[in-house]
């Protein structure tokens, strides 16, 4: 891509490729967003160089006598940051995606096309998916958190945040988008297929996602890796326990001009550094791509809610997000499990825990195994097998603690949103039989 760009700039063909007039109504709606930097895509730049004297170029620099366009695009399409909504009806990819997700026919293809435009591709909030993504994120996070709250009422807050991130955070949503077969456009623009996910690696856009307050010391927290208390996480931070970044992303704003300068220098045949911050596969690009994919999934849920209502959005979230497998047992890391278990037993007024040897084999051999159980009175709380008595005791204590934290009232416990179905009769029936869910008294050790 970059190599091609250099040829383009050398030939100077692009000077005529920036018409400033806006002819279509969609283009007219867009105000002066990104008037200066219009992304231009070139499909056959080598041809441009070879036949630079022929006057046959369209506005995007393509020699249409050699490469006839598959689709008749409206004029000045490539000047737009994202495809026109009317083109959504012609996109085969978009229709296939609509059918693949079994979306309701109430959701028009234009809306689905809009969910595929990230805020980094088109900063105009009337054309990108930021509003739908915000709506969708609230719905996904609500259903995920209420599911955890009801089904695992004793999860410690940190583990709860980790579980939320593992089920509804950007990483799992990125995987969901990938599992839907989403392809992304190399560079966003008005002429790309509306069925491709469009996000820009060069200009990370701003989209408000989720609730939370920006802490005054957020810079120091990020810089010095300060610990935040669980209580302050609940109050200030977002749904995943992550500190909310300040609203204006100063470092990113600073990055952009630098990159532009870089590309301009590069156009004057200065060799590009091998790994620029936006080169493919770097940490930053991976994060941006993950964010764009996650926002797309959230926007689809938001569109579902907007067009089909609450129940449809809920069943969609249940089918695609909550049905995924997350091993909660693997989310725990302990520091002093025996001590924590003793405190738990003291708080709950159980007998203090005692570790007892249940069975052993090969004590004098190279590979002994001890099976240790932790008892409180006559009840066994947990057991573990290890190569030393200490190891086995720690494992038994961790087992007992996990058994405490992972208590579940059962798969069939109902969440509060099950009671919201008020229109139909089934909802009324459900409403009658609501029983309050179990609520734990709180963290064992508060920080």
């Amino acid at each position: 891509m970059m190599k091609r760009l250099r040829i383009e700039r050398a030939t100077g063909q692009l000077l005529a490729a920036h018409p400033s007039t806006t002819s279509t109504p969609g283009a007219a709606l867009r105000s002066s967003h990104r008037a200066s930097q219009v992304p231009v895509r070139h499909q056959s730049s080598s041809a441009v160089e070879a036949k630079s004297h022929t006057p046959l170029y369209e506005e995007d620099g393509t020699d249409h006598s050699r490469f006839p366009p598959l689709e008749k695009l409206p004029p000045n399409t490539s000047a737009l940051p994202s495809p026109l909504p009317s083109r959504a009806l012609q996109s085969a990819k978009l229709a296939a995606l609509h059918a693949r997700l079994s979306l309701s026919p109430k959701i028009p293809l234009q809306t689905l096309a809009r969910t595929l435009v990230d805020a980094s591709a088109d900063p105009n909030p009337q054309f990108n998916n930021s509003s739908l993504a915000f709506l969708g994120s609230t719905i996904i996070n609500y259903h995920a958190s209420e599911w955890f709250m009801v089904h695992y009422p004793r999860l410690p807050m940190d583990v709860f945040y980790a579980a939320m991130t593992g089920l509804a955070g950007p990483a799992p949503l990125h995987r969901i988008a990938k599992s839907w077969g989403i392809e992304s456009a190399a560079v966003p623009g008005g002429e790309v297929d509306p069925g491709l996910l469009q996000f820009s690696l060069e200009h990370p856009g701003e989209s408000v996602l989720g609730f939370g307050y920006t802490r005054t010391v957020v810079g120091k927290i990020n810089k010095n890796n300060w610990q935040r208390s669980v209580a302050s996480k609940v109050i200030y931070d977002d749904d995943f326990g992550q500190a909310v970044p300040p609203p204006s992303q100063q470092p990113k704003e600073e990055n952009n001009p630098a990159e532009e300068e870089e590309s301009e220098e590069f156009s004057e045949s200065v060799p590009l550094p091998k790994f620029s911050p936006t080169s493919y596969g770097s940490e930053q690009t991976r994060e941006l791509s993950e964010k764009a994919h996650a926002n797309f999934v959230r926007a689809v849920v938001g569109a579902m809610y907007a067009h089909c209502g609450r129940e449809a959005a809920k069943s969609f979230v249940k089918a695609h997000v909550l049905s995924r497998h997350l091993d909660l047992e693997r989310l725990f890391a302990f520091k002093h499990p025996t001590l924590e278990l003793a405190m738990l037993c003291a708080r709950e007024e159980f007998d203090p825990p005692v570790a007892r040897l249940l069975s052993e084999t090969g004590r004098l051999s190279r590979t002994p195994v001890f099976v240790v159980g932790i008892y409180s009175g006559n009840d066994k709380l947990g057991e573990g097998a290890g190569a030393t008595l200490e190891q086995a005791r720690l494992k038994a204590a961790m087992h007992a603690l996990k058994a405490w934290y992972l208590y579940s009232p059962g798969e069939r416990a109902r969440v509060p949103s099950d009671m919201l179905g008020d229109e139909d009769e089934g909802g009324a029936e459900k409403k009658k039989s609501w029983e309050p869910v179990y609520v734990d008294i709180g963290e064992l050790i508060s920080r």
Partner: protein
Amino acid sequence: MAVKALQAVSQGRNGVGAFILQCKRIDLHYCDWAGSSRGMNGFIKSLLPKFAAAHPQIEFTVSPRPAKHPVAIGHYINGRSKPICVRNMEPYEILKKLELLRDASGEKLKKVTKPVRSINESVRGIWSPYHGNGMPL
């Protein structure tokens, strides 16, 4: 002191909750002139519209490829593709091949020796020599 959290990402299980057809695109290539494409041309004219209408999840692209054998290429969600050369085939044979492409998961073909493959843990747990009282023989 308190519990720390580790991070994990949930695993998808296609068909649990929602099912996504793994074939996302089928490319059909034909030649107007060559005899090996006769069946393919007939298929495109007669059977393809119905097949495509029955499978809106799949994006179909039809394009000429002069002086080459006709071919049907399935593209899958996992990024792989499965090309099948359909030279000298009758339209209904090609239909069978397209159904094969539609039903494939895109994974490499491998021998399935275990009757069940699952990430759910077993109901009775993993057998351990240190538990249970065994059975006297």
